[in-house]
């Protein structure tokens, strides 16, 4: 007997107390919406916490990002290229990595060397790059979280991981949601997803939080309006 059959057999024998009419729901027709399963799980928790208008939601995002030591900047679409150039200059970056379909206009003011992310670029090559600039898929205000989904303006997961400095541009208010439930609704589970809340951190030494272990030690978030 294969281990698969052995384990499934053990599970079935373990569940002899479960009434036979208590059958599992069929495969849901769409994510999380099968009526029978929904009856078994009461979802009377909140879809978001607190009533906020759009502006307040964006403010909360900025506040929670900053609370987790991300550096937050705000500007409008016109100012964005100069702000990005300024941030790279301030950092002293000589090379900047960009995903394949980053908005061209964002980089018109920069003077540093652009590095394209090629499928065959090695982790060591990425390690030599100073900064990375990406867009994002959605940002969650209540938790101060950015979600990247590997779209062409965000690139592969590794490019926002290996370089030490990440500038992430969030279009507000269009890409901002209030809560985790609202974010999940917008995301496609078949894509590789990375949720980022502040820069890399550890609390393993006496539960003191230290920013910066393996991921980028500096996370700068630009909330750009009027895009």
């Amino acid at each position: 007997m294969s281990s698969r059959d052995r384990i499934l057999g053990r599970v079935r024998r373990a569940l002899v107390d479960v009434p036979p009419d208590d059958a599992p729901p069929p495969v849901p027709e769409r994510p999380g919406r099968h009526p029978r399963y929904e009856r078994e799980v009461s979802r009377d928790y909140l879809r978001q916490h607190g009533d906020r208008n759009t502006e307040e939601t964006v403010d909360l995002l900025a506040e929670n990002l900053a609370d987790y030591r991300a550096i937050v900047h705000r500007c409008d679409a016109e100012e964005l290229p100069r702000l990005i150039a300024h941030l790279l200059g301030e950092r002293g970056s000589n090379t900047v990595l960009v995903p394949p379909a980053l908005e061209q206009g964002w980089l018109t003011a920069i003077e540093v060397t652009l590095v394209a992310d090629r499928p065959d670029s090695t982790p060591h090559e990425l390690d030599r790059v100073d900064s990375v600039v990406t867009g994002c898929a959605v940002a969650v205000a209540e938790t101060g979280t950015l979600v990247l989904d590997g779209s062409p303006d965000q690139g592969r997961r590794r490019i926002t991981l290996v370089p030490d400095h990440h500038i992430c541009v969030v279009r507000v208010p269009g890409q901002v949601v209030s809560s985790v439930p609202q974010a999940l609704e917008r995301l496609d589970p078949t894509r590789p997803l990375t949720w980022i809340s502040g820069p890399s951190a550890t609390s393993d030494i006496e539960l003191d939080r230290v920013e910066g272990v393996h991921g980028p030690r500096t996370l700068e978030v630009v909330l750009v309006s009027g895009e």
Partner: protein
Amino acid sequence: MSATFVGMPGSPAFPAFPRAAHDAVRDTTLRGNLRHATHTIRAKRAAAVAEMPDWAALRAAGRQIKDHTLRHLDWYLVRVEEAVTAAGGTVHWAADADEANRIVAGLVKATGESEVVKVKSMATQEIGLNEALEAAGIRAYETDLAELIVQLGHDRPSHILVPAIHRNRGEIRDIFRSEMSRWGRPAPEGLTDAPAELAEAARLHLREKFLRAKVGISGANFVVAETGTLVVVESEGNGRMCLTLPETLISVVGIEKIVPTWRDLEVFLQTLPRSSTAERMNPYTSMWTGTTDGDGPETFHLVLLDNGRTDTLADEVGRQALRCIRCSACLNVCPVYERAGGHAYGSVYPGPIGAILSPQLRGTASEIDASLPYASSLCGACYEVCPVAIDIPEVLVHLRERVVEGGPATRAGNKVLLKPAKGHAAERAAMRAARWALTRPGALRGGQRLASRTRRFHPRTLPGPGRAWTGTRDLPPVPAEPFRDWWQRTHGGPGGKDAK
């Protein structure tokens, strides 16, 4: 019948909890480290939970989602297999630790590699994977900072979330200075005990391993049956490194980690970070579904692990332990854990959840496992903080009954009849005597009066088998007058003077 192996490799037998805790509570450094850490996280967690007015509803939903999954686990396991396979992954089934280790070692060997990078994973600790790989000539590097401290220190983890919680910064610096050079890049010259410097040393040491690694090994916090998506929640970025840079990824996941739908993550992504690290959200969460062309590993293997979980599932009271999402909130509030430390539990699962999980996964045959249901004051704080509402005290009492009385249980898929454990004869005799006396009011009254009148002559410690009990407790003094006599005297008659 082979025993389920649950961690603590190289040490075949662990002393019972009271003996292990006996020394730990006298270690003042350990108690200081633990007290500082647990009190810090306790206060932070309370604040993080207080931000959520719907916490009780989230907790209830989490419990219902997990219970539903467990009640239909066979069905959901097959869904996971279908979904992961459809997304380009390969699914393997492992009935016990040996089988899981054999599968993983075989998969690593097939790549031709002799070293792997690992994300912290309770499941792989539980099965002793690192040691099994070592025996197969494969070196496994732990990459979580706390796991690295434990691995370099030739130590054992003592907390689910912060395995090196028992170490302070000075001890960590000493370990890095003396051990890092044996595993790769040595610690920087003049390393101090500042946490930022220690983290930097770990960054430099591990980066060379991440950048050359061809095989990564992980666990998972959740597996979504509907989509085949795996979720890993972490803070440092070591998880992202191991999950995305290698060409091959092998994830070893307990069969209880399944949630039915994508939407269910909305519950656990709100409760897990706040319960574990007391954050609104942990810095990094990675989700992947099979493989993605050009992004991340080209080969993905999922190893579904039983190792005693189906035996636990067969216990109608105890199966709720499988709801556990390994947040470690119960450890941080437990007065027993705070004083005894994680090592005394003799398992990779310490604290209150370990006290119910280990004896169920491993059975209660060994001394340590028979003692774990007693490693609690039954104060109930663990139940209060549990984000999936596991009634740990209920399961503890249930397991105490199993230890003392024996009875039916399931081991390695087979129904067995457990004998009462040795060493509990006095307890059983006392309970039998109590049952006899409590059903005979006359005898009880006589006995109580006799006890009151002879109180002057009572010893301070019990003789014989009771000696161990009074070795750590004061024997309660017998009152000068039994309660029932006092009631009659002060309230005049059996019904009391106020009786209508």
